[in-house]
């Protein structure tokens, strides 16, 4: 039977790769491989997953150097029988394949990403035209599930510790286009601050890596434009 050579990161920020051999099957994802190794060869391997079908975003890892959802990465798509699996980059490593995502989520908050409304359940729901420019802009960004793949793919995140990163700014973009959001100016101010949208070099790694094809690059470009308008005094740019 054909076998796969799997190199899995063991340890935290310091550590090394451990090599495993796994039978190649007709239908097999990276997550299947990690699970098989953990259940049949070495139970001490730590990794994260929940839904196994590309909904939750918790199984993202670095596979052959690129950030991916392991549950949606078919072995055949890699066109290689030697596969290295590491935790997501740009985050501290906790153990084996598990990265510490707290910095990623903290920045999510720092980008002014808390929805704020003074409406209560007694108010009528806001009517939003699905064809409106703002709704369409929000729609393009809104499907993000915080998996951290774009954050791991971004060079500017690697270079600049203060940079909020593509996911947080993408969220800010969907929020400033949400007409129900009360603190639009606060969100814009946070998104254009020291770690904000001005740091983006528009390299588009986030867009290339996003498993569901979102373009944080476009969202950040929108924020840049909005911050310019805001600088020129146009409040509702």
């Amino acid at each position: 039977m054909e076998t796969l050579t799997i190199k899995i990161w063991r340890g935290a920020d310091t550590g090394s790769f451990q090599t495993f051999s796994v039978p190649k099957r007709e239908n097999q994802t990276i997550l299947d491989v990690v699970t098989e190794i953990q259940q049949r060869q070495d139970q001490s391997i730590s990794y994260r997953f929940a839904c196994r079908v590309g909904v939750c975003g918790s199984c993202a890892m670095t596979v052959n150097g690129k950030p991916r959802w392991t549950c949606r990465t078919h072995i055949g798509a890699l066109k290689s029988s030697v596969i290295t699996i590491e935790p997501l980059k740009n985050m501290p490593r906790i153990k084996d394949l598990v990265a510490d995502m707290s910095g990623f989520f903290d920045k999510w908050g720092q980008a002014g990403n808390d929805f704020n409304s003074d409406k209560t359940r007694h108010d009528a729901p806001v009517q939003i035209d699905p064809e409106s420019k703002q709704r369409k802009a929000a729609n393009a960004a809104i499907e993000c599930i915080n998996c951290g793949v774009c954050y791991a793919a971004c060079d500017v995140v690697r270079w600049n510790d203060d940079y909020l990163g593509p996911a947080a700014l993408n969220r800010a973009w969907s929020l400033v286009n949400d007409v129900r959001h009360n603190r639009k100016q606060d969100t814009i101010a946070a998104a254009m601050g020291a770690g904000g949208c001005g740091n983006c070099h528009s390299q588009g790694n986030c867009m290339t890596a996003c498993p569901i094809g979102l373009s944080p690059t476009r969202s950040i470009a929108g924020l840049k434009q909005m911050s310019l308008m805001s600088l020129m005094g146009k409040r509702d740019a």
Partner: protein
Amino acid sequence: MLEVRLYVLQRLTAAIMAPMVIVHLATILYATRAELTAASILARVQSSPWLVVFYTAFVVMVAIHAPLGLRKILIEWGRLRMSAANMISLVLFVVFLGMGLRGVWALTGGAG
């Protein structure tokens, strides 16, 4: 707001410099068709107040633009803290502006 202002300044100076670089290069190409000596360059520059105005503006743009780019490089590749990068960029701005204006001043014959 500071970040956005600096962001705009860098893009604005880049936009202004783009045609200036073309004028600068075209002038060099044109000028080298004749003899290229210190005396001929000085004569040409001193005969045209527009060139002095042009290069004064050019120097100011460069002095703003270059330190802003270096500031980001210092932060991203040099891993410097923002406050340190700000300080270095500010010093570079003063140095570039001083050297540039001193050069333009010399071209006008002002420095003797």
